[in-house]
């Protein structure tokens, strides 16, 4: 039976969160603090607000539960849960970026990967169509990829300095 030792995390705005050790050590940063014996009192996390910390804990709890034998959740369900978890934050971009910073600071690789991929997808989704009202020619679809990559120098020059 896994140890059910509780760890207290304190956010930057002074709120305390009590979590099981197994959930807390999803964060490598916290894991090392515990190993270095800094966890007797609350662990202060000056870089993470309570709003974000709550979300991080929610994520970690789900992932820890998902891997426990009794509540075994299969990969697809977990991915679906992740997608729903992150979708809320796409609406609120600031939260999403704060989550990235928190996942980085707390060193939670899976959350960092999830959030970074989400932002990458958002960027990808916004790139087309290229606004080319000031480019005076069209290009064929076959060459589109190529031309877009190579034209960027010329486009960059025009766009950044000649408008």
């Amino acid at each position: 039976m896994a140890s059910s030792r509780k760890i207290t995390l304190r956010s930057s705005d002074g709120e305390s969160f009590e979590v099981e050790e197994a959930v807390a050590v999803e964060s490598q940063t916290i894991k090392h603090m515990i190993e270095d014996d800094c966890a007797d009192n609350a662990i202060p996390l000056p870089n993470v607000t309570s709003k974000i910390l709550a979300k991080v804990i929610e994520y970690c709890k789900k992932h820890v539960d998902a891997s426990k034998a009794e509540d075994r959740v299969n990969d697809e369900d977990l991915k679906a849960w992740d997608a729903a978890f992150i979708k809320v934050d796409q609406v609120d971009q600031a939260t999403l970026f704060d989550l990235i910073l928190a996942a980085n600071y707390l060193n939670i690789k899976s959350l960092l990967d999830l959030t970074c991929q989400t932002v990458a997808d958002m960027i990808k989704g916004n790139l087309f169509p290229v606004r080319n009202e000031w480019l005076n020619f069209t290009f064929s679809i076959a060459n589109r990829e190529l031309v877009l990559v190579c034209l960027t120098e010329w486009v960059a020059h025009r766009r950044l300095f000649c408008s």
Partner: protein
Amino acid sequence: MLRFRTLLASPYRKRKKQPKTGRKTRATRSDAVPRKQCHRTDELRQPHQLETVEQEEEEEEAEAEDGELGFHLKSSARSNAHGVQPLGNLFLSPNATNSRNTGLGALQNLTDELLLEILGLLSATQLGILATVSKSFYIFCNHEPLWRNLVLEALGGDFSFNRSWKSTYVAGCHPSFDVGSVGDLGLEIRDFYSDYVFQSWLCANLEMKPEWLERDNIVRKRGISVEEFVRSFEEPNKPVLLEGCMDGWLALEKWNRDYLVKTCSGVRFSVGPVEMRLEDYFCYSDQTREERPLYLFDPKFGEKVPVLGLDYEVPVYFREDLFSVLGNERPDYRWIIIGPSGSGSSFHIDPNSTSAWNAVITGSKKWVLFPPDVVPPGVHPSPDGAEVACPVSINEWFMNFYGATKSWKKKPVECICKAGEVIFVPSGWWHMVINLEESIAITQNYVSSRNLLNVLDFLKKPNASTLVSGTRDRVNLHDKFKKAVEAKFPGKIDQLMLEAEDKAALQKKPSFWDSVTDSKAGAFTFSF
């Protein structure tokens, strides 16, 4: 290997003592960008000349270094930094906007590293388009390491390097396009401040400072007997530079680019994560100007091109090679190493607790070695040794941490190893190597009677599956090896253990592993 970026320390103009920051850098990824200022005086700015003031900053340091030290750029440095300046300059500029931030919009609160990680998830086309969005994105999306990854993913080792990774990508993936007509316009962007991007460019273009190369305190020996070598160096585990033991190597006369390219025609050698033909690698190494150039490091060159194996022989001191009892199942043990000036290996301990020798055939290498119980400044091994966090590039280590070694009591062993010289690297020693010019070398790791017991202990450790390297059969290597040694040299292990006990009883010396405190010899992994 975890890599973190340490930044140039806070500046000062005249000889002023700066207060110690007293800050410990924890080398986790999240900590990668501590904010420090770096200073560049505009009046001194000339093309290809950068005057930057350096100050020691790390935990061990006692006082600020006096005087102004300049950094000199390599004469071929391209202005690919697009005029990027370090963050400290922002505070000295007349207007206080950083186009880095204004150009990133909502993304500006992310660190440079996180942003680059996100950009690393995009395709080439997407990166190209994103570069037109703003000056900030232009600089980030032209960050060469991003394009290097794209090339290696898309083309593996089959690329013909063409001035920059970005144009290499276009040339390789869209061959019908005339890359010559597109180039790096090298747009100069005047109000972009970023420590990460600036330092990346600086480290790539830095010349090694003469004082980093001055210290040469290794013991040099020529023509000593094997017994003397064992007694004075192998037994006490001390490094030594051996001269004259490559006399008679055909490689010394024959090996040059043309010979190797001809002899190895079509053969692919391990270069980081990919495999490349020699001519392609040389085409790359001639042009590259990077922080961490790709390094040719092949563990199977003898099998791939047997003729090469005939051009050299193991120096007489290292002939006892106990892993050979395993035959074909032995871990990787010999490598050919080729790399341009600036390439090299950052601090590590060799795998499986073996000892090593490294022979330079052409070129020259700067070595910095620390004994097993002394962790080099700026290097942070995990408690079990499986992971090592260290500065992103060798130049960065020299800029930020080399100075710390001057005031340490236990100074590192340093030397420049030139063509025709062989360096002995005792087991467990931390070492770092940088090529001062294009170099070709051969290195072998080996187990002799002196470190047999240590190696067996190492292979027996509970986390052998992560630490043991160079073989696919990590878990069973210990048993296999022990059995094979017993078979070929019955009684040897027992005899060695008796001798060790006798010695220990005499000296009450702690065992090798007990004496290693925070630098337990760890796994050897190159990460690229």
